[in-house]
């Protein structure tokens, strides 16, 4: 009897699968932002949530659950029921860096995560204090190469994107630059402006206004392509360090096992939102570059970056516990 009813249930579920997806969502959806309010992850998450709410006529609620470099909130989302009603903002840090950084991470990105859509790239720039006599990445490598440990860089913490960007720079160029970690981007950037430390890899959006006023000197962006919001800035790869490529992105993910019909429906909705003029205008103002991939493309990006950052972490010798 029990078996029969289970079988029936299963049958109903299989039949209702596509139907279920068409009606998705029938209740409010949670979008977990695994960081405190105010950062790029939060800004993008809220933009997505607002657009989804408009499209679906169902509330998409943003829930900030910060802590442990964005891993606590992501883990919570991955443990929620696998029905697509709990989404999370993932990023380069918690999806692709954390697995090689932390020995005891509560999730496995390849096994436990269903990628939905890659939302945007938040470009990084290399910023110097203006007193450092370098106008290009090549000049900087010259200085760093002549005197090991003469230059210092700030980061928002050990294992953060800003520190990995610098570690990749160091390992590719075989130079020694002293690492001075801070708690967050803001205090580190403040100390680059004031000349306490020499340089930092940080969000282009934060660097740009200071560079325009001459309080910082931006000498390059970290990706393989120039950023549309600062076309005059060369990439670091083209200006002295070939092969250098750091491109922090943020995307929406959910738990493994969520029906693929639901995943494609969410993907389509966000992809459409990323084409709407007001979203594009918002992103452009901040210098964020919209992506809008398919789930498969997003999965491929994640796999590639997992391998890339595992190598960076290994070479830099960073090991953290959780």
């Amino acid at each position: 009897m029990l078996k029969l009813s289970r079988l029936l249930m299963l049958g109903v579920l299989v039949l209702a699968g596509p139907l279920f997806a068409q009606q998705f969502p029938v209740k409010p959806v949670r979008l977990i932002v695994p960081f405190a309010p105010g950062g790029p992850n939060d800004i993008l998450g809220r933009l997505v949530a607002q657009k989804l709410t408009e499209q679906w006529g169902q509330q998409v609620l943003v829930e900030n659950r910060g802590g442990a470099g964005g891993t606590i909130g992501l883990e919570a989302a991955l443990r929620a029921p696998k029905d697509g009603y709990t989404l999370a903002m993932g990023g380069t840090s918690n999806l692709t860096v954390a697995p090689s950084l932390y020995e005891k991470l509560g999730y496995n990105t390849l096994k436990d995560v269903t990628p939905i859509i890659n939302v945007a790239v938040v470009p990084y720039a290399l910023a110097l204090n203006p007193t450092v006599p370098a106008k290009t990445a090549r000049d900087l490598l010259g200085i760093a190469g002549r005197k090991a440990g003469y230059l210092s860089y700030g980061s928002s913490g050990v294992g953060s994107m800003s520190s990995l960007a610098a570690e990749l720079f160091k390992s590719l160029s075989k130079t020694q630059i002293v690492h001075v970690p801070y708690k967050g981007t803001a205090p580190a950037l403040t100390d680059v402006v004031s000349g306490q430390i020499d340089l930092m890899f940080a969000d282009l959006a934060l660097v740009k206004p200071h560079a325009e006023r001459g309080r910082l000197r931006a000498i390059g962006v970290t990706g393989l392509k120039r950023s549309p919001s600062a076309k005059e800035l060369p990439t670091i790869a083209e200006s002295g360090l070939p092969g250098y490529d750091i491109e922090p992105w943020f995307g929406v993910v959910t738990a493994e096992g969520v029906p693929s019909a639901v995943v494609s429906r969410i993907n389509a909705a966000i992809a459409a939102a990323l084409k709407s003029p007001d979203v594009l205008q918002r992103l452009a103002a901040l210098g964020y570059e919209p992506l809008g991939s398919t789930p498969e493309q997003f999965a491929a990006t994640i796999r590639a970056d997992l391998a890339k950052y595992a190598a960076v972490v290994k070479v830099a010798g960073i090991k953290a516990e959780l």
Partner: protein
Amino acid sequence: MVETLNSLMHGFAVAFQPEVMMYAFFGCIIGTLVGMMPGLGPLAGISLLLPATFGLNPIIAIVLLAGVYYGAMYGGSTTSILMRIPGEAASVMTCVDGYAMTQQGRAGPALAIAAIGSFVAGTLGVLGLMLLAPTLASFALRFGPPEYTALLLVGLFVLAYMSGGSMLKTLAMAVFGLLLGMIGIDVMSGYTRFSFGITELGDGVGIVPVAVGLFGISEILMTAGQSDPPKVQRPTLRQLVPTASDLRQSAAPIMRGSLLGFMIGIIPGSAHVISSFVSYGLERRLSKHPERFGNGAIEGVAGPESANNAAATGAFVPMLALGIPTGPVTAVMLAAIMVHGILPGPMLIEQQPELFWGFVASMYVGNVVLLILNLPMVGVFVSLLRIPYAYLYPCILAFCILGCYSVSNSTMDVWIMLVMGVVGYALRKFGFDLAPVALGLVLGPMLELSLRQALAMSGGDYGIFLDRPIALTMLGFAVLLLLFAVKPLIFKGKDWRSKVGLDEPADS
């Protein structure tokens, strides 16, 4: 000067627009309510409200958040004074003498002085911000990790003056606070310390749950342990108003607190929390009757409350002049305008004069609104004490748990608060003073980080502290403080400390 005045007039034109006024007013009210919620302080208040401002225009958003920020600071002192529950680290000192005044039936004057002190400090702070912002901001930038280390050392030595009674007990509590501060990820290496495999502990033990537990929950437990319930207070109108001597005694501490707070506030980082501790230590040192501190000295409310508010305004100096978020609060504020595509930076004042001057003007308005809102409300707030304890305390406990949880949706914070409540209860039974725990917990992680950053910068050479004039001056001052503190131990002279009675547990 004329130009500044013109700009300010322009700013007032913005601030007096009905819509802006309305939001400033709303912000102040919401802030006051949030601040009165145990465990929710200014930072939590504006973080929770930030998303709600994304749909507003940037000027209104920042005016609203500033209102919430100020309001929460006012509201936080209310719970500190009435119920011994600090909403944030900076109001820990207000708990000590403010609550002692409440127990003596003088909650009214304590609340009124806190409001007046905050108003004076806030107004002076805005004046300083307006006239001196660019000059001060470039001075503030000279504070790097070495200077910060020296400043925090000064803060640590102030501990010696902070509590009465046994120096040994004070130091023991300070060390306990410093040890609590060791929990969590070591920022320099990325390794986790003392977290016992609990992921949430990786980010360290927050000061708010600890302070609410140590001060608030322990008080609830203490009261529950008394054989007779405390008498319900029914103050008369006369008792609600500060006397002339209250005002006279508070005037100087308010002015000193404002100046001190503003100077500490402009320094980038989270050092502003130490302003209220330093002010308390200073007032106690300067007082002719230091033994009154801890037993309801009105100076112990006036000084720290003013310092706290002036520091809050001071923190806006580098934020507005240079577009640099110097602490968590200013970072949230800048995020609020960034969402609208305004990138904060050194050109903020020139490119967004309406935003800058409207904001400055709204701070004047906000301070006046809060004074008007808070002074007549003193009577209402004090009436809370009329509620019999059997009903009041369970409610407070529920609100403590709610407030603690809602800051970062973490049950870990609630557990920390409850455990600290029991620890605080035990420590108070043994006659330990709790304020040093809070200061130790606040200072410990900051001191460690800046010390190690400074040493990383210099390649391990301690000379970096002597090469820099500001750091050297402050270290000299710290050594001086230390010498004053150990002098009685060496010369066995009569110390002010001998006049100070132990902070006795309430029921003995």
